[in-house]
């Protein structure tokens, strides 16, 4: 006992000495970090918050309607949020890197859809490749501006969103583009349509009907009774999980998100990392845009409207922190699924779309508040 007390005393003395010497050097050391008590409620909220929410929603749904637990209903929920899931997976990389959000996602979806419809007349694969390349270009611009010049990401991506909207509307004079409709008038507006017509006037005579049917059928394909989009969503999420947690790039992204200066001083190429995050976000938005356009069977500037906010809502619900460097792919899926469940239950009760919007906003603010508060209680987050 005496020995123990002695050791304890020694430790205290050493502690004092260490701090008396190095206090001024390491002035940013948070001394209170060791004294924080682990609050059970806060720990649970930060780790498994979404899944508790899903459980509560499921119980609520069973009470509300017996149809809720049926397989077709759950499949419908998943199908409805699968587009959001694809986009949210991309944006999760941007949030993970501590850059708040990619607000250019809605117009990226619109513009890639339009370009896919344009290039679809050479074949569906060409359309998809062109769309993904457009996504890569947009992501590169965003990533360069944000990663190199350090522009405020929210404002920049918002400006990018406005520019893309202006581009789509201006080049189409505010019109829409239909996959199965093409006459001489159609080839006078658009990004590449006039060029295509100039290069090869025979393009008027190609068999557009079957190609349009193939394009429109993308969202209506049901391999094994499950929509194709759902497979794509899970594939994108699994790929996202591997990239985020199992690769060097993912680890570097985590460091960049946790502390930008530390990442820079430890030799990580921050510009490249941030750029890649934005490119992944835009490519995911492009994939979502192709399927969204195929679902609506029309390419227009309003495709994907509101997906930026919904994606951020899902990600925050899923435990991603806006400060960066926190969260995982399972949480992303949980957040997306929660949004789908909320919407589904509200529809089952019989609440209209507009009131649903209001309730979703209120729930969002509440969840963010609880999340931020519990993180602060654990001493993990100062954002």
């Amino acid at each position, binding site marked *: 006992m005496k020995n123990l007390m002695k050791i304890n005393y020694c430790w205290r003395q050493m502690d004092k000495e260490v701090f008396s010497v190095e206090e*001024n*050097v390491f002035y*940013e050391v948070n001394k209170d970090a060791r004294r924080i008590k682990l609050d059970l409620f806060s720990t649970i909220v930060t780790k498994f918050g979404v899944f508790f929410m899903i459980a509560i929603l499921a119980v609520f749904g069973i009470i509300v309607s017996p149809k809720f637990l049926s397989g077709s209903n759950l499949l419908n929920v998943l199908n409805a949020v699968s587009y959001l899931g694809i986009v949210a997976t991309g944006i999760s990389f941007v949030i993970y890197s501590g850059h*708040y*959000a990619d607000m250019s996602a809605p117009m990226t979806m619109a513009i890639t859809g339009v370009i896919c419809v344009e290039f679809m007349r050479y074949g569906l694969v060409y359309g998809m490749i062109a769309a993904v390349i457009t996504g890569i270009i947009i992501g590169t611009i965003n990533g360069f*501006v944000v990663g190199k*010049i*350090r*522009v*405020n990401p*929210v*404002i*920049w991506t*918002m*400006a*990018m*969103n*406005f*520019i*893309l*909207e*202006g*581009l789509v*509307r*201006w080049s189409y*004079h*505010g019109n829409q583009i239909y996959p199965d409709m093409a006459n001489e008038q159609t080839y006078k507006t658009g990004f590449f349509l006039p060029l295509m017509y100039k290069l090869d006037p025979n393009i008027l005579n190609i068999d557009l009907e079957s190609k349009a049917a193939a394009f429109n059928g993308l969202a209506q394909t049901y391999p094994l009774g499950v929509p194709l989009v759902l497979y794509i969503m899970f594939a994108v999420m699994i790929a996202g999980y591997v990239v985020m947690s199992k690769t060097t790039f993912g680890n570097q992204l985590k460091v960049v998100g946790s502390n930008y*200066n530390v990442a820079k*001083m430890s030799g990580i190429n921050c510009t490249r990392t941030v750029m890649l995050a934005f490119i992944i976000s835009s490519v995911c938005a492009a994939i979502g845009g192709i399927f969204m356009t195929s679902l609506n069977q029309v390419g227009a500037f*309003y495709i994907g409207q509101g997906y930026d*906010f919904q994606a*951020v*809502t899902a990600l*925050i619900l899923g435990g991603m922190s*806006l400060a960066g460097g926190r969260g995982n792919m399972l949480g992303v899926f949980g957040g997306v699924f929660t949004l789908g469940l909320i919407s589904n239950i509200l529809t089952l009760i019989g609440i*209209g779309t*507009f*009131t*649903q*919007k*209001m*309730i*979703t*906003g*209120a729930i*969002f*603010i509440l969840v*963010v*508040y609880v999340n*931020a*508060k519990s993180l*602060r209680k654990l001493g993990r987050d100062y*954002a």
Partner: protein
Amino acid sequence: MTMRNIIKNIKPDKTLVISKLNNNRVYILLVLIMIIMSACAPNFLGTGNIVPMIKTALLPILAGTGFTYVMIGGNFDLSVGAIINVGAAVVMGEFNRFFAIFGGEAAGIKAVVFGWIIAIIIALAAGVLVGFINGLLVAKGRIHSFIVTIGMLTALSGFVYTYCKGNTISADNTLFVNILERPFIKIPYLEVFTIRFLVTVLIVIFFEILLLKAKWGRDLLMVGSNEEAAWHAGINTQRKIIWTFIFSGFTSAFGGVMFAISMNAAVPNYGERGINPLMIVLASTIIGGTELTGGRGSVVKTAIAVLTIQAIFNGLIIMRMGFDAQVLAAGILLAIVVLYESYSLYKQNLKKGAKIALLKEVPELKARRKNTGL
């Protein structure tokens, strides 16, 4: 050599001149764009064009006043557009309700006046309440302002749609509807002097004086530039930030109220498809020299910047470029301004050396080594 001679002999620094020009860039931009547009488009400077141009600028000017305050405090208020819609819808809906309560057409002018007064008070209170909730969540809840206001934006747009039931609301009585837009004098160019114009100018001037001349405003500038230092200096930083959001809610709602009354219509989706008021307000606040990180800014310069943007839009209309070109031009303008602002900051940081923490450490370590002999 006396002090005065030394000061006289100092040559004006090149960077000083540039920074002074940069500080007053809104005025230069406005004049430049006026000259270009009047050269390109005939009748641009005519009274039939200038007066409506200023009238359309009144709404973003008013909303920009509060937005500038929020941005000086170091936050963003993305719910500006939604609050405008709330103010517009609530004032129309509540007027119709109270007009009916006070007796409708049978009660005469009394019902109209009291109806408008109560409706306006309720609409402004709604704006203030929304701003207060925003501020409370940002300052006390410590959530990022971007997230709070974007959540608020969704909730409010849902609220407006349910409140309007998806329709356009107009007032049942049109007696006072035009009073805000009625000019005092019918002389060319002086037709701008309407009640709406004067109220907007008064609010802008009030907030400018509050910001630059009053102690409250100077404290706010300090909070924006360094919150911790302001806190150590004894300023209640949280309360300051809540007030900025309240001002933003108030001015946006006021803008919406006056816009709805002068148009006699409130739509639930104003600015959702097309040019969002938020876009104009954001771009003009940044053009007006308000720093993205807070701590510097001016309300009057924001107002001038709104006029500049409206001049560009107006010129595009006269040149028959269409509405879609306006959207593109607004986006490009915002992007250029943001890029310029951030690029100058980037260059500054390059000069300074961004590793401030390291720079501080090195001399201390050296001094310690000298003292201890290690």
